[in-house]
């Protein structure tokens, strides 16, 4: 397979189809095992410092914020996949919790503008070499996850070509052995760990998600260790009532953690809308280029809280959630 051209970016995750197979063989022993546990136990057992991590959701939607807060408190550091990450990856970047990053979209808060401190901080870390990055795009990141979810080592794509994004990626150009045309290949992305927040799961880890799925199904299927945080735990009978709704079957799941409102302040489709007020508190703090205001934000909301419930209380608790539910249910039709 002659390589005609290739990006100069680094591959931060190992391409290990056979090792993944062996890992899954052991995992498949845990069929119909009750995997319910609390967040601390799940992180303790299935997340290691230095892991290559991928997390679910997209933009300001269905982000596993309860999980992110807990790893911030534990000061765990990761290599990470980032196709359209916003608030979640910013929280980690602000606190130097990421050492290597595959970039689709970072540092943007979509409609809310730009977190100035985070941007400056990241630029500085890049200049110092404290943060390593490789460029990709949302599509190529999704396809990298998909290749791993298929159990292979690469995937052909038709984007990236001709751009500097390609030049700073780890993609390769080869000749298609069937058509003779030049094609782009991206390497499969096998993650050490993955965390996805879902609407409903049973105790074994059969999961249902409402709304957009992004590349969560592919991430779930290609991570060695998978933690599911869920709005609620339902009976397996309910799962069996409509198996077409099961987007992640239990075989991939290591831990099931019930965390109502675990995606707050981001949007949980059908349940609660994103909390624009709280996100603006963060965004305003991130405008302060000295980082002092952000430090206070983290003291108030993350490091000064013992768990996610305390954070929720500080943000207005059930009352605020009720308001966000109303906005969510009304919004489609305003």
């Amino acid at each position, binding site marked *: 397979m002659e390589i005609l051209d290739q990006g100069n970016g680094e591959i931060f995750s190992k391409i290990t189809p056979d090792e993944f197979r062996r890992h899954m063989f052991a995992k498949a022993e845990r069929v119909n095992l009750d995997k319910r546990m609390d967040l601390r136990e799940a992180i303790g057992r299935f997340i290691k410092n230095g892991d290559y991590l991928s997390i679910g959701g*997209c*933009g300001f939607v269905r982000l596993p914020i309860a999980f992110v807060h807990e790893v911030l408190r534990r000061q765990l550091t990761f290599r990470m996949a980032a196709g359209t990450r916003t608030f979640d990856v910013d929280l980690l970047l602000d606190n130097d919790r990421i050492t290597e990053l595959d970039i689709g979209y970072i540092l943007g808060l979509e409609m809310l503008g730009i977190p100035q401190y985070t941007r400056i901080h990241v630029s500085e870390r890049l200049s110092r070499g404290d943060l390593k990055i490789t460029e990709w795009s949302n599509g190529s990141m999704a396809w990298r996850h998909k290749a791993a979810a298929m159990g292979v080592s690469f995937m052909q794509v038709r984007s990236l070509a001709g751009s500097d994004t390609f030049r700073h990626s780890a993609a390769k150009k080869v000749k298609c052995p069937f058509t003779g045309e030049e094609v782009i290949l991206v390497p499969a992305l096998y993650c050490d760990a993955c965390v996805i927040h879902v609407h409903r799961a049973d105790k074994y880890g059969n999961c249902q998600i409402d709304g957009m799925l992004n590349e969560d199904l592919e991430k779930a299927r290609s991570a060695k260790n998978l933690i599911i945080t869920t709005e609620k735990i339902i009976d397996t009978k309910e799962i069996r009532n409509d198996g077409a709704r099961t987007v992640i079957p239990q075989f991939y799941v290591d831990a099931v953690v019930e965390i109502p409102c675990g995606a707050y302040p981001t949007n949980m489709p059908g349940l609660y809308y994103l909390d624009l007020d709280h996100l603006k508190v963060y965004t305003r703090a991130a405008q302060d280029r000295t980082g002092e205001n952000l430090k206070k934000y983290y003291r108030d909301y993350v490091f000064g809280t013992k768990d996610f419930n305390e954070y929720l209380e500080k943000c207005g608790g059930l009352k605020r959630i009720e308001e966000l539910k109303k906005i969510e249910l009304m*919004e489609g039709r305003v």
Partner: protein
Amino acid sequence: MEKKQYNPIELMACIASRYLEDGRLIFAGTGIPMLAVSLAQKIYAPNLILVYEAGGISPEASMLPLSVADSRTTYRAICCANMPEAMEMLQKGLVTYAFLGGAQIDMYGNLNSTMIGKDYWHPQTRLPGSGGANELGSLAWKTLIIMNHNRRRFVEKVDFITTPGYLTGPGARERACLPPGNGPHLVFTELGIFDFEEKSKRMRLKSLLPGITREKVIAETGFELIISDKLNQEKEPTPEELKALREDVDPWRVVLSRGDNDQ
């Protein structure tokens, strides 16, 4: 100077909305592109089908999504899919329009949303990166671009080609092994509308926004611009456009308010 009845974002969204063909599939970035598409759907193109990269296809939500993936992108959608599926719709040629923003553009429509500076490893400013833009610009048939117009943004050479335009000119996309036959189509700014000259694939001023002179456009452009023989003049935003934009599309003024400072 008379105070305008609209801010620059409102202006660009209204003008761009008129150029969207009905009955086609479109991917749009958050922010101004989405504003223009939502407005077009309400007035000019009721069968313009929005596909969101996170998986929402043709939702019925009336308010602007605040995130590329939020529940408004799947509200009563005809299909609730995922990122690979949405991207593969692009890859298979089903999507006519991509609608993008960007920090820098050059005469061939190459777009930069990755970093500003001369040294990639020591960026002056690090930007978000491609997001879905590289796929949109590589794989949709016609790329629409909307951005503010000044010499820092309309540059001779972008610092980083995040998303390919016509690269170095005619045939360059195909030589780079991108799919044939597509590329940048129109650029919308607060000064004018631009297309790409057939033979040279270079950006061409096609139409002026209300009150703008061609000299102003040339002065704000950092590369040599082709000027169309038949230069058009865009009409002011209509009351109907502004009402729909303000009352239906973005009633909370989440995006629209970003144009208030520049008014």
